[in-house]
């Protein structure tokens, strides 16, 4: 295996292949950064270009696009509160507040470094342990997906520390929105109100643009007439690179945990980068010594989200390369590209086509390094975008939101949905009813529903739904994690009380001593 990996690395570093990889990474970043264009779309559009190339060069380019897009989506998430792809939703929670504080470059560099780290860890796992991990991925059945979805929903308690009731209410509204369209099981047409275009459901990216991007423009640029998009002017410098990189490498646990979560979520077929980034963000917030910093602009939040969603990409290739089961929509496009080049997933990929397969894996690895370089130095240019006066920037952003919403399915109804969600997002922000849990419910609703309904059907046949859903090893672990996640805020509050009391007592006694001395 090591020989093949080394040969693969040499293949990638050949000038023509390296150039193809660089172009792929660059195009991936562009696709990820433009709201409405996703990694899947980028891969699908560029697969035909790889036909004329050799299988090695073609797959190297696709690897570059995939890895580049997983970073690119963080750029608009940080700068304009609009995730380029749904996988960057958790990046907005801290990335945009960072940009507002004039620290957009910090966010962008943290995203680039964390993306590369996540990708690197997941690639090492992919290269070293793909076959045994693929077997575990097959153990993910409907109950596990149900509990994974529920675990993801517990992040609401983190997202809405102000009012958990309102947070869960918003999550329920999101899950109702996720039910719009044709039911996966049963085939019923639900809540389409006579619009046939809604049978495919509400497009996630349309909801993201509506709930996150438009309210910000309506509120700050149009409503308050702020002359610049950020509250403080960004001044990029080389010192920021050093500061952020040092700061992140002083947090190996955060980085490794986020990469591990991304890899595990990635190799569970169907669970995407959005779930990976949400779960990772939640865990980062829970285990941090200063959870109060999250949501107000910290590079830890950006790193947790980005390391996980970038680790998800190679993670999703584990079941693809070994079993032919794509772990994510972009992986499904790569499966198509493999088949077109006459390669069938399975054992023969690691024997007959080992040279090409390992070149592909090594390309993912090298692309991660390219992302660090392009992302870190690109941050000097990207971060200045929000210094552009909002008079010039806002019309371009609104124009892109309309274009991006339309481009997903080529219909005007999506644009209208984006507009309506934008107004709802603006009103709900004003009412302190934050829309992030609505989007979370929209993302996780289909997972929870499919897991629930399939478990009910299989459970009936197996003798009992409850037994079938609960008494399984992976389910047990996930249930435990759900309980921990829900009860954590109570535990954290109890833990904080004695500390607070200690501080109060200490300051009171110091005050008393001070008063005594002054006498």
């Amino acid at each position, binding site marked *: 295996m090591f020989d093949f990996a080394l040969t693969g690395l040499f293949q990638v570093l050949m000038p023509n292949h390296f150039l193809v990889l660089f172009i792929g990474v660059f195009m991936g970043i562009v696709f990820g950064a433009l709201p409405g264009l996703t990694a899947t779309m980028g891969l699908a559009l560029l697969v035909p270009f790889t036909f004329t190339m050799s299988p090695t060069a073609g797959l190297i380019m696709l690897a570059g696009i995939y890895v580049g897009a997983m970073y690119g989506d963080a750029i608009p998430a940080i700068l304009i509160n609009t995730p380029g792809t749904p996988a960057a939703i958790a990046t907005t929670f801290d990335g945009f507040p960072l940009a507002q504080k004039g620290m957009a470059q910090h966010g962008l560099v943290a995203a680039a470094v964390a993306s590369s780290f996540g990708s690197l860890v997941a690639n090492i796992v992919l290269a070293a342990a793909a076959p045994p991990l693929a077997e575990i991925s097959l153990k993910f059945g409907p109950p596990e997906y149900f509990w994974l979805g529920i675990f993801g929903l517990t992040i609401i308690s983190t997202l809405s520390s102000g009012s958990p009731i309102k947070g869960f209410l918003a999550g329920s509204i999101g899950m109702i929105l996720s039910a719009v369209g044709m039911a996966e099981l*049963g085939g019923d047409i*639900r809540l389409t109100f006579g619009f046939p275009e809604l049978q495919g459901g509400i497009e996630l990216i349309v909801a993201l643009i509506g709930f996150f991007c438009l309210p910000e423009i309506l509120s700050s640029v149009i409503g308050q007439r702020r002359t610049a998009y950020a509250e403080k002017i960004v001044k990029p410098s080389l010192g920021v690179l050093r500061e952020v990189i040092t700061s992140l490498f002083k947090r190996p646990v955060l980085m490794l945990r986020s990469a591990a979560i991304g890899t595990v979520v990635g190799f569970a077929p169907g669970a995407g980068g959005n779930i990976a980034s949400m779960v990772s963000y939640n865990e980062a917030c829970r285990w941090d010594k200063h959870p109060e910093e999250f949501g107000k602009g910290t590079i830890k939040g950006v790193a947790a989200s980005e390391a996980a969603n970038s680790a998800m990409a190679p993670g999703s290739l584990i079941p693809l390369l070994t079993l032919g089961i794509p772990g994510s929509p972009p992986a499904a496009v790569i499966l198509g590209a493999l088949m077109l080049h006459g390669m069938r997933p399975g054992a023969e990929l690691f024997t007959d086509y080992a040279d090409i397969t390992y070149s592909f894996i090594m390309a993912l690895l090298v692309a991660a390094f390219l992302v660090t370089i392009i992302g870190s130095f690109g941050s000097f240019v990207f971060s200045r975008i929000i210094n552009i006066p909002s008079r010039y920037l806002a019309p371009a952003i609104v124009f892109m939101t309309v274009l991006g919403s339309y481009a997903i399915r080529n219909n*005007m109804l999506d644009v209208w949905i984006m507009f309506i969600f934008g107004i709802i997002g603006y009103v709900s922000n004003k009412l302190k*009813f934050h829309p992030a849990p609505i989007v979370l419910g929209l993302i996780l609703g289909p997972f929870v529903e499919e897991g629930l309904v399939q478990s009910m059907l299989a459970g009936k046949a197996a003798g009992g739904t409850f037994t079938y859903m609960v008494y399984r090893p992976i389910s047990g672990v996930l249930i435990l994690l759900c309980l921990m996640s829900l009860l954590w805020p109570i535990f954290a509050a109890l833990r904080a009380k004695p500390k607070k009391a200690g501080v109060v007592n200490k300051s009171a006694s110091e005050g008393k001593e001070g008063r005594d001395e002054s006498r």
Partner: protein
Amino acid sequence: MSQDSETPSARRLNADLIVGIVSLGLAALVYFSTRELSKLGGVFVDYILVGLTALALITTAKGFIKPERVRFFESVIERNNVLVGICILLLYLIFLPLAGFLPASYAFYFCFNLYLADERFTTRNILISVFLTAAVVTAFYFIFHHFLEVPLPEGKWFE
């Protein structure tokens, strides 16, 4: 009553009550729209509806007992700005399928750019808006329509 208390800036809304009642309305709408579903198609919706209704009732009750009051607009100027901004976007979306992508986008971009400028109708501002409109809209049109081959809205008026 003082004059100040009559301005939008002084009015405070009961956020919990509004959120609770709107959520109850949504729950009722979903309930009456999903009674014909099969068991498989309706089970998830029914479970969520129970949770949604319970949480909406709690929020409504909180609105009566211990409401969270918020100020919606800071000033009349902010309210007017937002309403005009929404109207410009609304008109763009209405005219997009009628006039087609390019004419509607040129008009929207020009108007929106000019609306956000401090001194609107100076020659300099108008020229800047014209230049930016032509550059940005045309660039995006070429990228999406010609390079990525994404079909863009065609107008009924100019077909």
